[in-house]
């Protein structure tokens, strides 16, 4: 099998696991973790394409580093929001957030 395809299949699998997690988990932190899986699936894609494409172009690898940085910032803000929600409502179950009609 073409090595690039192997990477793409793994990445697609990882992405699907992430989507499944977001749609089925009820805990906000678990949803955040599933989103991280999806971001890393995209990273894997970027790096695989960069590695098996033109080896002199590093855009894929560089982008992956940017994504890691942004994901860290996003997680910091996300966890802060989760903490604030917990302080106000005493749980972080997204199914039971219904002051605003969903």
């Amino acid at each position, binding site marked *: 099998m073409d090595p690039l395809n192997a990477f*793409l299949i793994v990445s697609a699998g990882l*992405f699907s696991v*992430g989507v499944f997690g*977001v749609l089925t988990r009820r805990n*906000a932190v678990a*949803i*955040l973790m599933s*989103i991280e899986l*999806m*971001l890393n*699936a*995209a*990273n894997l*894609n*970027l790096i695989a*394409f*960069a590695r098996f*494409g*033109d080896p002199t*172009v590093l*855009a*894929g690898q*560089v*982008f992956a580093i*940017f*994504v890691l940085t*942004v994901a860290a*910032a*996003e997680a910091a*803000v*996300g966890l802060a*929001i*989760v903490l*604030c*929600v917990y*302080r*106000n*409502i005493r749980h*972080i179950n*997204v199914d039971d*957030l219904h*002051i*605003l*009609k*969903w």
Partner: protein
Amino acid sequence: MQITPRDIWNISPHLVVAALGLIILLIDAIWPRISKRQLANLALLGLIGAGALQARFWPRGQVTPVLGGMIVPDGYTAFFNLVLLVGAGISLLLSTDYLEWDGSAHGEYHALVLFTAFGGMVMAAAGHLIVVFLGLEILSISLYILAGYQRERRESQEAALKYFLLGAFASAFFLYGMALVYGYAGSLDLHAIARAAGAGQGAAANQLLLTGIGLLLVGFGFKVAVVPFHIWTPDVYEGAPTSATAFMSVVAKAAGFAAFVRVFALAFPGADLRHQVGAVVASIAMLTMVVGNTAAVLQTNIKRLLAYSSIAHAGYILVGVVAVLRNPAAPAEGVSAVLFYTLAYTFMNLGAFAVVLALRRRGEELLNIEEYAGLGFRYPWLGALMALFMLSLAGMPPTAGFFAKLYLIRAALSPLVGMWWLVITLALTSVVSFYYYIRVVTVMYMRPAVEGEQAPQASAGPHLGTGLALAALGTILLGLIPAGILQAAQQIAEGLVELGGMALR
């Protein structure tokens, strides 16, 4: 890559806004007693400075990308930068009174507004997908915080969590789409992608590219709130602090469409490909107009009504995007219609929120539309202004909203686009929109006012008053003398299209 003074000069409006945000955070940390009104004034001064810098440095003639092709300082960037600066400035004017009344006036608010505007400006200027992503995340992360800004209010917290989880989910799709487009084109530069997609004969049938474009559509669609990626909008708009809602409704939309139109107008040039993508965007546009307008009819809360109305307006703007994609002879017409609409929407929507921000009743915000009864006579100025903004949002001549819609329809009616049903949907759903916009006005004028202790009150300080006046001025002037702005928009759109054509050669 060398960074030259020319590069720095070209991104100076961006730098001013970002630096000012940091300075405000610092001042607030070093000197916590400082009046927040002063901080707001400082932020406003900086926004005016950035706007003056951008206007002084309006690009003429041929534009070359700077910073290694990452940033394109063309007229398109300049236009959206000014729209974003105006949006952020008026929003700041509207927020000071509200935040003081609410007791949540902190320095972060102003810094976050500036960071959001900076993210939007980066998105508008992006010539490279990495920059689009970075701009989008700077914008989004700041907005998540603004949505949850009232830490003690449960609604605000709930809105922030919902916005954050769905926003991050959509970002992941967006990123995956970028990775697939990168896999197809071997580059993230918009012009390089255009060369790859334009040279490959099978671009319109390439699964990798099509999936990538589809996922990019999901990402942009979420940010500008189109059906079926709109579920978050009413909840977040209702839960977030009203001043933050006003801000995010215009700035996120302008920035989202700025990047959306640039990426889709430049990066995917093949006629077949554009035809296909255009058809998908057209169906999303139709769905968005129908769902947004019908759901708005059912709302009783003014913030939710404006949320659904903003979804409907995103649908109208998408009609312009369809005209860009499906009219290979004159894509500039669609681009200029989108530019004009974004500016008009900024003024009229901020105006509507300004009226909502001015009204209170015994320490509570006045959000139920029924409670607006009789306010048109009690506060003639506010009533008249609300009527103006509502009519403009509905698209009544001679206001900004009318001409904005007219130009969209003109761009979409070209026989090359071949989407007459889309234009008919736009017209019919606009008629539906009259129902709910006019309802607000009729409640204000046709119902008896509540007297006594329960009577609603209006208060507009100098800041809010100025914001309200600016929004009204913009709405009226764009309606009375639209020609100047439209001409500028057309020139900018032609420049953008030329730039795309040049890259292909």
